[in-house]
């Protein structure tokens, strides 16, 4: 029962976002045929002919229905500029973006969990301060600026990394940023857990530190991770787009920005919608994983916190 609510709500959100993006993209003054017309010296009649051919002269509601019907079968239309299926272009670019996002997310989560658990077990050490510092870092220093600094220092000044086409800098930058966002709420939760009576009981009955951490402390991380997932993933989408353009990496971000310059609607709306849906689905999965990891929630207890 509890699962039906979130799934339905996320489905409605997804539908609304798809519709809004479709409408927003439709309101662009001028269309791809205008751009092609200027570049290719087309006459008015030729331009009108191309519009009719592509369905750009139909009312938007008809265009949306046709697009949505095709999209459900995996056909996202043709790129107006390259005359290639949009789905092909996106499938070609997606692995690069998924690699960047996946590596950054893994690095960020592993780093955050390690630091937060360490800081909870050894509250007197330097780890709590490190968690705090990392949090301030991710709030006060935008990844865009760190990326610029990395190019200037690591690539131009020291010459350690190429300026374009390397994954190391963007993954480190995004990973550290994600770790900074997650580590602090995680540490606060685990600190409370580590100080609670059942941990003392576990210690008293002679469990090893390893068993206590893995069996009793760590499972509590799931709730925090689920609660911040939406915020973190939303930020990751923006970060990955920026890093791709900054470090000259191929991927969905690079494709999107070429498409915007060329007013290539089908590509623009497909990329925006895919990113938005990816965040929604990931959010939902985090929610479900949380429910699975914490059986109290399934029986109608309090839901995961709304982030923060």
């Amino acid at each position, binding site marked *: 029962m509890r699962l039906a609510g979130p799934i339905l709500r996320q489905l409605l*959100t997804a539908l*609304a*976002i798809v519709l*809004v*993006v479709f409408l*927003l*993209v439709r*309101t*662009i*003054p001028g269309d791809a045929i205008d751009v092609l017309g200027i570049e290719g010296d087309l006459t008015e009649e030729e331009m009108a002919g191309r519009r009719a051919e592509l369905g750009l002269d139909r009312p938007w509601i008809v265009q949306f229905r046709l697009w949505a019907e095709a999209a459900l079968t995996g056909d996202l239309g043709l790129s107006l500029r390259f005359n290639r299926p949009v789905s092909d272009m996106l499938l070609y670019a997606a692995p690069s973006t998924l690699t960047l996002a996946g590596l950054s997310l893994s690095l960020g989560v592993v780093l955050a969990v390690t630091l937060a658990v360490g800081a909870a077990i050894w509250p007197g050490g330097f780890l709590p301060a490190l968690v705090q510092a990392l949090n301030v870092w991710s*709030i*006060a*220093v*935008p990844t*865009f*600026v760190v990326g*610029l*600094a990395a*190019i*200037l220092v690591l*690539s*131009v*000044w020291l010459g350690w990394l190429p*300026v374009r086409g390397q994954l190391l800098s963007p993954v480190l930058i995004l990973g550290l940023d994600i770790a900074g966002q997650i580590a602090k709420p995680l540490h606060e939760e685990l600190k409370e857990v580590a100080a609670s009576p059942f941990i003392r009981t576990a210690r008293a009955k002679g469990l090893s530190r390893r068993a206590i951490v893995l069996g009793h402390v760590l499972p509590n991380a799931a709730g925090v991770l689920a609660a911040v997932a*939406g915020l973190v*993933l*939303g*930020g990751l*989408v*923006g970060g990955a*787009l*920026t890093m791709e*353009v*900054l470090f000259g990496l191929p991927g969905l971000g690079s494709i*999107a*920005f070429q498409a*915007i*310059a060329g007013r290539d609607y089908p590509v*623009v709306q497909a990329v*925006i919608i895919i*990113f*938005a849906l990816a*965040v*929604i689905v990931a959010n939902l999965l985090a929610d479900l994983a949380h429910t699975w990891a914490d059986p109290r929630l399934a029986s109608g207890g309090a839901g995961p916190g709304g982030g923060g």
Partner: protein
Amino acid sequence: MPEGIGPSLPTPALVLGADRPGDAGEALQRRLPDPLLLAVAVVVALILAAPALLPADPLAQDLFARNAPPGPPAWLGRDNLGRDVLARLLAGGRITLAIAAGAALLSLLFGAGLGLAALAAGPWASGPVFAVFDLVRAMPSILLALSLLVALGAGVGPVVVALGVSFAPTMAQLARAAWQRERQAGYVEAAVASGGTTWTVLRRHILPNVAGVLVTQLAIVLPRCVTSESVLSFLGLGVPPEVPTWGRMIAAALPFVERAPHAMAAPAAALGLLTLILALAGDRVRRHLDPLRRPA
């Protein structure tokens, strides 16, 4: 400031002081000599006074001095079209600051203004309004700004609107939380019972209580607007190409970064410094106004 807050609440310190006479002076005293806020003031003043201090034209090209290294008369060097980097830096700073301030204020007006108005009007208005805010919040802010800019076209106004809308839902949420908290308070019930209209209750009782939270959020949103504006214009989505902004400068310098790192280093450092001091100052404001940190 929205008309609702009005002239009786001119500064954050006085907003605080409205219900706690002792705090206003204290907060001011603690805040005035703050080196951080002083740094903010100096940077903002420098950027605003730029045209008077430095008469160089940010748009003038000297094609014989393309990518020239720093030295007189161009103290930070020239970019790939031979334009004075320092002049562009200062001109771009004005635009970035103006856009960020405008966007932050718009998010306040749009989020808190519309949110509170809808709450005051009743569930028939607040239901749909907050459903829209939830929808906006569900979308990653860069994608939202991107879709809005694609729809609205290039220009200063569209960027302000796109950023303002992206940051509005948080403001609306804070306003709603304060509204719900205060509505249950005994003195509000008393005000309603003694015949106060919704509008009077909103203006006299809710607004003074929500103002501190909103000013704090404004201070937090401002540096984010600076960064977002720079990222958007770096990606070619912000203001028109002929307007100098830090994001545009960085985008133009990036292909030549091996030969002319100064043309990218200057706007990158300026952006980093401005967002850092604004973020730290915002945090300072938050700590001063955070009701949880003040003794009850």
